[in-house]
């Protein structure tokens, strides 16, 4: 009887540990996904800023050419 009790307790403990680990991994996945989204957004912002700078440079060149004419 004592042996069975011990085994049962061990199984219960393992299940609890597994459940905890699963939750931990799920949290990690969620955090990683959030991080990926944030990084992608920052990259997009950088790219848009670069394009914006190029557009402004082009506008300046057009103004200059118009003035020359």
């Amino acid at each position, binding site marked *: *009887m*004592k042996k*069975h*009790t011990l085994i*049962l*307790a061990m199984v*219960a*403990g393992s299940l*609890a*540990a597994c*459940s*905890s680990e699963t*939750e*931990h991994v799920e*949290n*990690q996945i969620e*955090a990683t996904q*959030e*991080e990926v*989204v*944030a*990084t992608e*957004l*920052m990259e*997009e*912002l*950088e790219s*848009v*800023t670069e*394009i*914006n*700078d*190029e*557009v*402004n440079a*082009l*506008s*300046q*060149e*057009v*103004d*200059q*050419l*118009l*003035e*020359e*004419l």
Partner: protein
Amino acid sequence: MKSIIIVAALLFSGISFAQGKSKEHKKEHKHDVSKEHDHKKDHKNKHHDEKTEEHDEHKAHGHDKHADKHADKNKGKHGNSAEHRQDGKHRNENSIKTEKPVNDEEVREVIDVKKEESRTVLTEAEEKIASAKVKLEELLKAGTITKESYLLTKEKLSALSKRSIDLKLKVAE
């Protein structure tokens, strides 16, 4: 009966321990991620701020000054230099507004504002290119410029037009 109580107690303590550990993990992880994210953002923002400042300065000294000059030149013709200047001011305000994005929503907003600004400037540039082409033809007809000068300017205008189309495609992406 005794053994059942022991099992129940062990099970309860095991679950409580596991839950406590999980909460601790969650808290710790969230803290780490926000810290790391903040650090990354700080770094990127710093870079972006530098760029924006540089850009604003450039605009203030270069483009906007030039726009004002151009607007003043055409004051008599169109009478909308104040509007132009206000437009430029608005653009600068947008740039200032977009300095320090804090969260994803704000970053998205900044991206949209910048894209809109690019579209507006590109449309204006295209209109200017078109008017420059017309002016060039008129100058050639009037004999004010040489054929060589005409061809050179036309080539420049074509290159600018192509760049404008490429940039428009990039903005639309």
